[in-house]
Structures are given as C-alpha cells and as structure tokens.
C-alpha cells in the first residue's frame, strides 16, 4: 500500500522528520525493533542448542521418549509421547488466534469484541503458564517420576534422561540437555508471563474505555505483536527441542 502518496496527514501527527518512516506509527515500529532484537536472542539460544546437539550427537536424549506424560493419566504403562507438548502448542496457537481476533475487532472499533477476545487471550496465556509448571515438575522428577528423590532428578548439573541412562550404558547423557530445557523453555515462559501481564493491563484499559477516547485500538495491535511473537518462538522451540 502506498499510504504516503495517497493519504494526506496532519503535519502535527507526523514524526519530527516530517514523515512517518515505513508508514507505521512510532510505537508499532519500536515494538518491531524490540521483537527483532528479542528474536536474535532466541535465535542464538536455539543455535547454541543446535551446537550442543551436534556435539553430543551420539548421546543426546530423544525428546519424544521423555515427554510421554499426561496429567490425570499417570500409571506405570502410561505412554503418550508428545501429546502434552502438542496440547500446549495448541493452547498457545488458539490464544494467538483470539488475539488476532481482538486486533480485528479493534479495527472495527468494536469494544465488546475486543474485550471478549482479549479476555480469552489472557485465559489462554494463564493456561499455558500453568501447563508449563506441570511440565517442569514432571521433567524435574526424572525417569522414576518421583520429585522427592533428589538424587535422580533432572537439575542444571545432572540429567538422567536419554540413551545414556542406566548403569551399563557406555555413553552418559549430557547435563546440557536439562540445562537447555530449563533455559529455553524458562526464557520463553518468562515472556509468556510478561505477555499475560501486558494483555491484562490493556484489557483493563479497554474496559475503562480508554481507547474509545483515543479513537483507535492500536495498543491492542502492539501487545498483539508481542503475543504473536511468543507464539512464533514456541513454534521454533517445539520443533527444535521436542521434535528434532
């Protein structure tokens, strides 16, 4: 869209240089700048994960053999590979969809629609964080599934998962496996928590009618960018930690 040519803008609303670069508002552009740098951080983390995976090519645990638990379906024979992570991925995708619907409703100045969809986005985010808490406790519990036995739990310094597990196994599984699990999913979880807080603040503002007064719902679009970014990162974490 050639917005600059076809639209005439009030001089007061343009940036100091007399025009708005890339035809986007200042706030949205800065959100993109932040996301670019944040994406490079996540890219470096996942790159480091790839480095370790290639270094320990013989002994790196197979993720789909580890994340086989489901809540309420515990038992010695319970074996549901990847199902729980898939559920978490689906929850995050759905909350991303409700967010994009909130943005769309904002473009129509539909306050009730924004409230409804933003509310479900916050709920989806909370469910995801809760799921991650359960996943962490299950992961920390180690292969025996008992979190109170600290000697065989997965921590930053030890990892009993993987091909190398067992007294007569010649290859020891690297501790980096659990380190990367905690760091990558933890860093992502921190983003989800801050995203939920941001969404909640914006939801309160919508309820107060702040954006009706401003005349547009661009703030929803800006936090929406951040929320979609969280979903985007999870897509990569899901592939490169759990699948590949």
């Amino acid at each position, binding site marked *: 869209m050639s917005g600059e040519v076809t639209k005439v803008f009030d001089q007061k609303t343009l940036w100091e240089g007399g025009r708005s670069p890339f035809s986007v508002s200042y706030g949205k552009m800065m959100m993109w700048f932040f996301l670019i740098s944040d994406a490079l951080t996540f890219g470096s983390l996942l790159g480091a994960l790839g480095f370790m995976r290639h270094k320990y090519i013989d002994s790196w645990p197979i993720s789909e053999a580890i994340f086989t638990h489901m809540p309420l379906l515990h038992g010695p024979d319970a074996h549901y590979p990847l199902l729980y992570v898939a559920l978490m991925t689906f929850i995050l995708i759905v909350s*991303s969809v409700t967010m994009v619907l909130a943005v769309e409703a904002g473009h129509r100045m539909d306050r009730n629609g924004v409230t409804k969809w933003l509310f479900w986005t916050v709920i989806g985010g909370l469910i995801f964080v809760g799921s991650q808490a359960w996943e962490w406790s299950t992961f920390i519990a180690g292969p025996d599934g008992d979190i109170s036995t600290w000697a065989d739990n997965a921590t930053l310094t030890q990892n009993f998962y993987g091909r190398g597990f067992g007294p007569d196994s010649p290859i020891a599984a690297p501790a980096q496996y659990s380190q990367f699990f905690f760091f990558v999913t933890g860093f992502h979880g921190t983003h989800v928590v801050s995203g939920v807080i941001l969404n909640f603040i914006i939801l309160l503002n919508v309820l107060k009618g702040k954006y009706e007064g401003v005349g547009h719902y661009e703030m929803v679009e800006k936090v929406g960018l951040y929320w979609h970014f969280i979903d985007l990162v999870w897509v990569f974490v899901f592939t490169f930690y759990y699948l590949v």
Partner: protein
Amino acid sequence: MKRDDIIEYSLGAGHSEEEGKIIRKKIWFVTALLSIVTLVEVLLGVFWSSMGLEWTVVKFAFIVMTMVKAGYIVMVFMHLGDERKLMKYFILMPYAIFILYLLFLLFFEGNALVPDLLT
C-alpha cells in the same frame, strides 16, 4: 510531535464490517492450517520410525513445516504481509543473513567437537 498515539496511520488502519468478515475468514483458515500442520508434526514425531522413514527426511520435513507455520504467523497474524515492502525486508533480512550463517558455523563446529572423536 507530542504523542504518538494520535498518528493518523493508526486511525487509517480501521476497516468496515464487510472487510472484517473477509479478514476473519482468513484468520480461521490460518488457524485450521496451523492446527493441521502441528497435528502432522506430532504424528510424524511419534510414528516416523514405525513408518520406516529416514531420519534426515523427517528432520527436514519438520524444519519445512516449522517455516510454513512461522511464515503464516508473521505474515498474517502479525500483519507483516500488509506492511510496506521495505519494512518487511528490514525485519526479515537480519535472520536470513545473520542467523543462518551463525547456525552454519555452530553446527559445523559442533560436529567437529564430538567427544568420541576428540579422545
């Protein structure tokens, strides 16, 4: 410029009820697509060895599917597809140049550092 929240670009971003219907249709289409691709990924992740597939093929299938998902999220959900071409490139180019090169170096070095080869 005192405040950025009154910039006309934001006011101009609105659309009508009819346009909204088309946009929502697209959103639901992308939702279905993302769900299906995730489902395929999970099924492939669970059953690839019993289906007798080669791991390298499965791995690249995963990466391609991830890129498809990422593309739809960035272009449709984050509306980058609706932004100006220059904006699109300045956001996407750093990854094409920097991350791919970094990954190449890291994997190459990682392969060279396999513990069994060092001892």
